[in-house]
């Protein structure tokens, strides 16, 4: 089970490197975390060759990706969850309470909605014209793919 220990160690090293990279880089945190997980995975076999040890590729891969994917799940929740933002906002208010309307206006309508529209424009999915937001070909392709997948898995409504 030496490979499992090595895979776990590489996964944890990846977690540490993401924390470090995010403090220095300005690119999208989600993209950085994903790229970092792939780079760490490529370094792993190179390390095995350098150390001249015999290791099972599958045991190494499974244990590494188990840690890396678990981290990406947590990362995704921390980075994008509206629910967690609401919890933290309440925690930082006096008496740990707030009017419902204030939370709704702050996190769902103003901050969340505006930032999502910003992401759509920055990613090249849509453009902001005088008449409003308009899908660009890239956004249309992504939306069509998502609609097809939703149909395949009978997801009637999302959000």
């Amino acid at each position: 089970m030496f490979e499992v220990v090595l895979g776990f160690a590489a996964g944890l090293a990846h977690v540490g490197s993401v924390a470090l990279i995010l403090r220095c880089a300005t690119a999208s945190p989600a993209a950085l975390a994903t790229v970092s997980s792939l780079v760490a995975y490529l370094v792993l076999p190179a390390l095995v060759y350098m150390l001249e040890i015999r290791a099972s590729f599958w045991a190494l891969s499974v244990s590494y990706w188990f840690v890396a994917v678990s981290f990406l799940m947590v990362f995704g929740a921390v980075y994008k969850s509206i629910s967690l933002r609401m919890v933290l906002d309440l925690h930082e208010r006096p008496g740990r309470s707030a009017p419902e309307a204030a939370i709704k206006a702050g996190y769902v309508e103003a901050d969340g909605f505006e930032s999502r529209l910003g992401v759509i424009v920055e990613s090249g999915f849509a453009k902001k014209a005088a008449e409003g937001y308009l899908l660009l070909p890239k956004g249309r392709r992504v939306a069509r793919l998502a609609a097809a997948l939703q149909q395949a898995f009978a997801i009637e409504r999302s959000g």
Partner: protein
Amino acid sequence: MLDFSITPPLIAAIAFAALNPVWLAALARLPALRGRNPLQFLFSSLVGFAGWSAFLWYAAGSGPVLLSDVLLGFMAMATATLVYLEIWALLSRGYTLSLLLALLRADGPMSPEMLAAVYRRGEGLGWVFRHRLSGLVKARLIARGNGTLVLKAPLGVVVAVAYKGCIAFLGLKRTG
């Protein structure tokens, strides 16, 4: 040197994990599970794990199954489940993706006000708040009454502190 040989329990785990979308697509069409996306995903994952467990039980009849193979197989299935969950959550709960879908359905320019109104096929942006809030109340993180939200102790406080710690550890400048 890397050894690429693979054991039957791990092959079975990968195969059952690969079939997860098939179970999910089939379960999503059962009338009893219609519209209940979290239950659909839970049951499809359970079907995969049950199938793999049945394979292990069958394999144990013809020879010993190593604990290390069971552990690796379990990790492979858990990893695949998490990957599917990430994709599936994006498709069924994605805020940004839903805005893109609203723009696709509109097939023309839309103002922010129009987008907010047609969000989630006409349920409007307020649905996001109601949905997330009801989840937090059910999870006993938040209590609501008289138009006020209160963070519940200890669970809500623990989650908030853990979340704050994660943001600090990752050095994230912006979330949500």
